[in-house]
């Protein structure tokens, strides 16, 4: 529903059916006489269109000129609605009262949505915001969103970098950015060497500070010196530097991953959907109570909007589902996905994998994934120079 439809409804309009004669001429004449027509549909030799009531009188002249027959199909608008329900004396005041209550209640916060955070749970942020004044039922006019945001950031003890509260209708959208520790410039000038963190073959080495000991293509073992922080001057004196550089190497890594078979982690069987009416923060269940504590749930809430303006009336759909055991073949697939996830996101998150071979073995209770990965990774690690040595 948008404002244009409401405007048309308030001005009252009729849906007319136009038959026979010259419908094209009728449309053109309406256009010339400034008769606004919309949603004109031509089906089976009949033109159906909407016209405002104030323009309907003009159609009589046009009808004669174009030789068409006009018939009113439907009357829409506030006037017709009141006329139809004249005898129901409570209905109109009831609707007006409901609208006024809804408009008044729209001045309160009934829904808070938190986005953009991974480290802090939305409940925790809502709690912080409630301390800074933004909570369910807060009166919106005169509420300082920026101040509430600033106070919530202060209350977060440095966990939140930035927080913004946007209020639209009765919904508050909270945009959060987590604090990420910046890896600034290394100001620590403690003399150090760069040594190999693991076994591998040097692919490329860019020395920023220090003396490169091992050349490209050389094999190194864990702990081997790659860039030395000891620099010998021409006059024989020695400078101790903080060696720095980027060394990438091809390395072989072995991965072993053992996990207990989780037989309940398989396919989902949807049992039933349940609906809950959310009215001004109150939850009204639209189902009979039953014991479903053993079932898993997924909930989704949709709020009523009016031209992008959120109204505090919504419907929550809760899908109850049951997990069911799967066969060994089905488990295999899940395990492979698990292995992939583990490989990609756990151990070799920042590595460039060039070759991967892995096998999956299972027994009664566990499954084990063992694999070999060839990947390109940064091999260098700083090791402080002990001057006694």
């Amino acid at each position, binding site marked *: 529903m948008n404002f244009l439809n409401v405007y048309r409804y308030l001005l009252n309009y009729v849906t007319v059916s136009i038959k026979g004669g010259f419908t*094209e001429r009728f*449309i053109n004449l309406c*256009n*010339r006489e*400034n008769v606004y*027509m*919309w949603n*004109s549909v*031509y*089906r089976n030799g009949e033109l159906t269109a909407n016209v405002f009531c104030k323009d309907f009188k003009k159609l009589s002249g046009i009808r004669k000129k174009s030789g068409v027959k006009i018939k009113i199909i439907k009357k829409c608008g506030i006037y017709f609605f009141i006329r139809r329900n004249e005898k129901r004396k409570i209905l109109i005041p009831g609707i007006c009262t409901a609208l006024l209550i809804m408009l008044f209640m729209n001045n309160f916060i009934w829904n808070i949505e938190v986005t953009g955070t991974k480290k802090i749970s939305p409940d925790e942020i809502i709690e912080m915001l409630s301390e800074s004044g933004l909570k369910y039922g807060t009166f919106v006019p005169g509420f300082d969103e920026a101040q509430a945001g600033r106070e919530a950031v202060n209350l977060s003890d440095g966990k939140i970098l930035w927080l913004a509260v946007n209020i639209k209708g009765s919904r508050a959208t909270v945009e959060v950015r987590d604090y990420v520790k910046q890896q600034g410039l290394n100001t620590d000038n403690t003399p150090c060497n760069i040594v190999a963190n693991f076994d591998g073959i040097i692919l490329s080495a860019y020395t920023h500070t220090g003396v490169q000991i091992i050349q490209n293509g050389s094999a190194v073992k864990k702990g081997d010196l790659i860039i030395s922080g000891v620099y010998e001057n021409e006059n024989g004196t020695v400078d101790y530097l903080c060696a720095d550089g980027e060394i990438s190497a091809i390395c072989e890594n072995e991965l072993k991953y053992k996990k207990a078979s989780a037989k309940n982690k398989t396919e989902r069987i949807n049992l039933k959907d349940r609906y809950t009416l959310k009215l001004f923060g109150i939850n009204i269940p639209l189902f009979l109570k039953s014991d479903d504590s053993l079932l898993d749930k997924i909930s989704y809430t949709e709020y009523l909007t009016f031209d992008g303006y959120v109204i505090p009336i919504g419907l929550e759909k809760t899908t109850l589902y049951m997990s069911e055991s799967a066969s060994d073949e089905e488990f295999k697939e899940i395990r492979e996905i698990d292995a992939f996830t583990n490989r990609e996101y756990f151990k070799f998150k920042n590595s460039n994998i060039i070759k991967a071979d892995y096998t999956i073995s299972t027994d009664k209770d566990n499954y084990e994934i063992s694999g070999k990965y060839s990947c390109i990774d940064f091999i260098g690690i700083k090791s402080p120079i002990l001057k006694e040595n």
Partner: protein
Amino acid sequence: MSLKKEHKRRFTSDFPNPALEPMIELISNREAVVEGCAGIVEYNDSSVTVNCRKTTVTFEGSCINLKALSTDTIEITGTFTCIKFSCL
């Protein structure tokens, strides 16, 4: 011919004047807004022909509706399969 007249002739012949020419705005094949139209020539179940003074534009397809009409603009919705131009 003077330089000014020659320039005017060239300019008017090469570039269409947006104030005089019809402008058609298409949103996929679902909606079309024709500005600078002078009326409807033909309208039936599967096509609508719009008079754009110098040319006529025919929109063929299914579910052709005239969503809104004003003195020089027409908004057509439906699923267009073909758009034809013909000079008057």
